[in-house]
């Protein structure tokens, strides 16, 4: 760290100044804390609206009491409105594609016989997963509905079939959303979106504000070097990012019941790296923009592809190649893989090391641009 030898006190000076200014700007500070909460509430409202009575087709290849009881229990759950019969796989696909049906429940031939023999037969639920907020809850209930129905059906000598793990295997086949983006995916993704939006905006004002308030000449006349100013200016916002992370993670855990499988420290390391990437990018914007308005526009210009091409909105692999290339450049893409990997799949740092590398490269490239672009003179 030779370039920073002896820089400590000056970095601290700028950090303290920035922290005081951040604290005094109550409105901005409040916004930064309220935005994640509002986004979570909006999103939570959408998924907690608990959509029921979704149009459902059944495709049963046999008609036994057990099958009828199963179908009835789907209807009784309130989530599935069985309003039509499907004539076969092609008919099922058509109904899903035209949004005539949100689900097709398919019970294959020989189901009852295999159930009685205790062979754990499969039944299939094809789902239109393009609107995960709508379909995910119904999907989540499917196994429970089946288990519950069979606990009534399988009585007497058959009750031994009620063993764990369930007498019937419910296979969910989400269509139009092969990666199965559900609320579980979206809540961790929301963390990335919130951090991108707020942190890039706030640091993109870092230098433009000094410029517009007439402090730039004074700052330049002092013996503070570009890297010192950069570090001092983004450091206080680490704390802001950490607070936002805490809010979202607590909500994810206790409101949305998002599972948390992987090691916490890997997640936190990912969050930290991602926060630094966003702060560096914002600072770079602020060295390029001439006014706060320009800084704002640059942020939005960056924000849009981040939302659309990172895999937050649309499944990454479903995008055309050019979009995937752009997506690979965005920090949010890599962060989503880290956070989804750790929270949902329980992967360790070894499996996602490449995503960390991508973020580090991003930080170095962007940081270098910032240092090169930083105004050392008033020219």
């Amino acid at each position, binding site marked *: 760290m030779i370039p920073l030898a002896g820089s400590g*006190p*000056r970095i*601290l*000076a*700028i950090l*303290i*100044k920035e922290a*005081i*200014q951040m604290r*005094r*700007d109550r409105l901005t500070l409040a916004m930064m804390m309220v935005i994640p909460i509002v986004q979570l509430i909006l999103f939570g409202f959408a998924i907690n609206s608990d959509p029921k009575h979704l149009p459902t087709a059944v495709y049963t290849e046999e008609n036994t009491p057990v099958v009828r009881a199963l179908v009835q229990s789907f209807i009784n759950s309130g989530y599935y409105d069985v309003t039509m019969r499907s004539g076969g796989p092609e008919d099922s696909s058509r109904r899903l594609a035209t949004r005539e049906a949100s689900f097709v429940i398919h019970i294959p031939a020989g189901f009852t016989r295999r159930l009685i023999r205790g062979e754990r037969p499969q039944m299939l639920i094809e789902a239109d997963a393009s609107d995960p907020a709508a379909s995910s809850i119904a999907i989540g209930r499917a196994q429970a509905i089946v288990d519950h129905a069979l606990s009534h059906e399988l009585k007497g000598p058959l009750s031994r079939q009620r063993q764990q793990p369930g007498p019937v295997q419910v296979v969910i086949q989400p269509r139009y959303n092969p990666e199965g983006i559900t609320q579980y995916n979206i809540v961790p993704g929301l963390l990335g979106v919130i951090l991108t939006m707020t942190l890039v905006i706030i640091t993109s004002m870092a230098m433009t504000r000094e410029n517009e*308030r*007439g*402090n*730039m*000449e*004074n700052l*330049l*006349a*002092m*013996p*503070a070097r570009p890297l010192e100013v950069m570090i001092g200016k983004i450091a206080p916002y680490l704390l802001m990012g950490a607070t936002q992370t805490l809010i979202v993670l607590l909500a994810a855990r206790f409101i949305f019941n998002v599972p948390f499988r992987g090691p916490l420290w890997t997640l936190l390391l990912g969050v930290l790296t991602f926060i630094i990437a966003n702060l560096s990018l914002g600072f770079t914007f602020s060295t390029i923009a001439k006014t706060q308005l320009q800084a704002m526009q640059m942020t939005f210009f960056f924000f849009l592809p981040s939302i659309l091409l990172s895999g937050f909105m649309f499944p990454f692999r479903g995008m055309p190649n050019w979009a995937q290339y752009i997506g690979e450049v965005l920090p949010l893409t890599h962060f989503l893989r880290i956070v989804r990997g750790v929270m949902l799949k329980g992967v360790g740092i070894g499996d996602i090391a490449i995503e960390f590398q991508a973020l580090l490269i991003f930080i170095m490239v962007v940081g270098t641009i910032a240092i090169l672009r930083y105004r050392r*003179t*008033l*020219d």
Partner: protein
Amino acid sequence: MTEIVIDVRGLVKRFGERTVVNGVNIRMPKGQVWGFLGPNGSGKTTTLRMITGLLKPNAGEGACLGHDILRESAAIKRATGYMTQGFSFWSDLTVRENLDFVARVYQLPNRRQVVDEALLKLGLAQRQKQLAGSLSGGWKQRLALAAVTLHRPQLLLLDEPTAGVDPQARRDFWDEIHRLSGTGLTVLVTTHYMDEAERCDRIVCIAQGNLITEGNVADVIAHSGLTTFSASGAGVRRLAPSLKGKPGVEHVAFFGSALHVSGTDSEALRTAISSFKQDADWEEIAPSLEDTFIALMARAGVDLRQQS
């Protein structure tokens, strides 16, 4: 031999097509207070910025405190206090926080003590918790002076430090400047006030980017070759319009109830006013610095226009 603190030669600065500073030389010895005079837009601020390294000159070279202005601006910044034109400290920090920030950036030892002393000395102690943005003009200027002298610089560059400040505060300010210069500090200060120029050891005058004259106030007045007559009496107010434009009359201005009439060509001037002898009481006087300054600037404007 006296130590030379500012030694710059042939400084040129262009913004696009416009040459804003055109070959300025300044050679300033240690411990003096110099005034830097010139009309609006004449290039004073630009020159100061080139001396501190905040702007890169298009041509010219020189040293400030023994450091090259082109290559060693970091060293110059550490040993110089530069007070910008207009308040440029942080309005959303308190007085104390501003000083504290400066003390930290310059890595001053005994920071707390240094800041306390500065607050006391400039009478800012009671206002240390006030936001800088809410200070009145005079107090802002005191804060700025406290801040730019906090690290005990060897050179002070002050850009119109007393603009919009009341007379008492200006006098206090200048007392402080002279006290500082007594300790060996060198001070270059731009101003539009003639009384402030008269408090300087020397003045440097610039017009449209060109140095016009330099010296102590008496020399500048003497070398201007200006002759000034003062007219007093009841009819002087009616005299002014008729005098303006007469051959030899370069400059007509009221000073209280008297009228000052100046010109370089003393014979022509005498002839011009002879026809108004009976309208007022005439008296030849030493031109004031203001008469001289305005005459110099007017002449420079004409000369420069003829050159280009």
